[in-house]
């Protein structure tokens, strides 16, 4: 993971999602490590139709990501109302590989339990976590 990038202004889950908090909203995506591990992303199943009408729960399944070689499940790192889903990923799922922290964002959540963010790892903690997990 020598060349992987895990920005210090984000928080990370053990299931490799990241969170960027702005005010009381959190943007969610998957880490550089995760996209590298998956390889070329070819399809995403996100809660496309659920913005404004679904409560996300921390730790719960919210979508699936297909790379050429495997399918993986996605887990919400924080709880709250689903505000927006990144529609651009329907037609350009490869953005998750090329820009995991920018255009590869997946959803925005209105935080209902902001303290959950403090439970997530800092970038230093996440990289240490990756090392100790043998990644």
């Amino acid at each position, binding site marked *: 993971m020598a060349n992987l990038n895990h920005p210090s202004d984000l928080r990370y889950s053990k*299931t*490799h*999602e990241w969170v960027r908090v702005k005010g009381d909203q959190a943007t969610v995506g*998957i880490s550089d490590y*995760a996209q590298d*591990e*998956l*390889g*070329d992303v*070819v*399809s995403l*199943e996100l809660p496309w139709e659920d913005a404004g009408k679904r409560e996300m729960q921390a730790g719960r399944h919210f979508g*699936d*990501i*297909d790379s*050429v*070689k*495997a*399918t*993986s*499940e*996605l*887990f919400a790192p924080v709880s709250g109302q689903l505000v927006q889903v990144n529609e651009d990923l*329907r037609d350009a799922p*490869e953005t998750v590989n090329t820009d995991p922290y920018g255009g590869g964002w997946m959803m925005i959540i209105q935080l209902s339990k902001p303290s959950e963010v403090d439970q997530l790892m800092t970038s230093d903690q996440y990289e240490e976590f990756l090392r100790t*997990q*043998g*990644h």
Partner: protein
Amino acid sequence: MTTPQCDPNAMTTPPLKRTPLFAEHQRLGGRMVEFGGWEMPVQYSGIVDEHRAVRTAAGLFDVSHMGEFAVEGPGALAFLQSLVPNNVAKLAENQALYSQICNAQGGTIDDLLIYHLGPDRYMVVVNAGTMEGDWAWFSQHAAGKDDLTLVNRSAETALIALQGPRALAILSTLTDTPLGDIGYYHCAPGTVAGVGCIISRTGYTGEDGFELYHPAAQAPALWRALLEAGTPHGLLPAGLGARDTLRLEAGFCLYGHELTEAITPLEADLGWSVKLKKGTDFIGRAALAQQKAEGLPRVRVGLAVRDRAVARAESAIWHGEERVGALTSGTMSISLGYPIGMGYVPPALAAPGTLLAVEVRGKRVPAEVVAMPFYHRPDNIS
């Protein structure tokens, strides 16, 4: 996100075998995974890039994990004829043949290539994960026969595949052998970059290309020479990931998926390679003849998934409210841009155009039976 690549049992399994090119894969940043008991590169730069390189320029594959058996002597032909359904007697020298070995029930023990290298000299090429069992099968049936010798040359033989529309141009810079004279499924002895090879015009990608059998000790030198000669043509080293997406688009079976000991070559739509009337008996012949007479219970088909969701091996296949089979392979077709798969369904549902559904994560998505190969290279629409 779940990371299916992490294998918690990795510490308890026996040590993985490595090909003579292991250090080359590491040098190139190959991501190594377990395959059939071997530690092999699944990708270098990325499966999509490698796949496209093979379709538009060339790719270089290490397939040294495959097994090679030498079968020689006056009894070699009769021995091979007794083991495989295809007709080895039809092989000219320097010609290759696709076949299988079957059990008495007609189930497929492995699929393989047979090369006729010279008078009474044959080479059998088998899959890596099945090599040990195949060797036991060959040895058992050769026991007591003093008119042939059987030698397992798997460890000392390396195999590099050069595949893609630029393969011939690249290889011709490294050899004096007139490559254009080697027809599809033919071979010739030759020297490539100073390394003595069997140059075979075969492959597993649906593209033109060559497979080079050579001594294991010289594999790194040959690999480097091919990389260097190919790079200006757009060649990329390619791993097992691209090998799988390419072979799927080409409609080729992968042993352990489309073929198993419970699946006959007839069911796998390989009837063209089963010669019941070749004039000699072979193991599985009676069972295959009976199955042909009675009709097949199921047959391999290609499916084009009409959805974004990628169906994988073991996904259920539905016809209306009836579960009619399962996928044996499935992936996103990189060349076509939609998911494809192969699986087994009753013959009545096997006609191209038949509308079925495949189950992906509990949801049924439409899938249409289509003729294979899924992908045709532009210069060959046969």
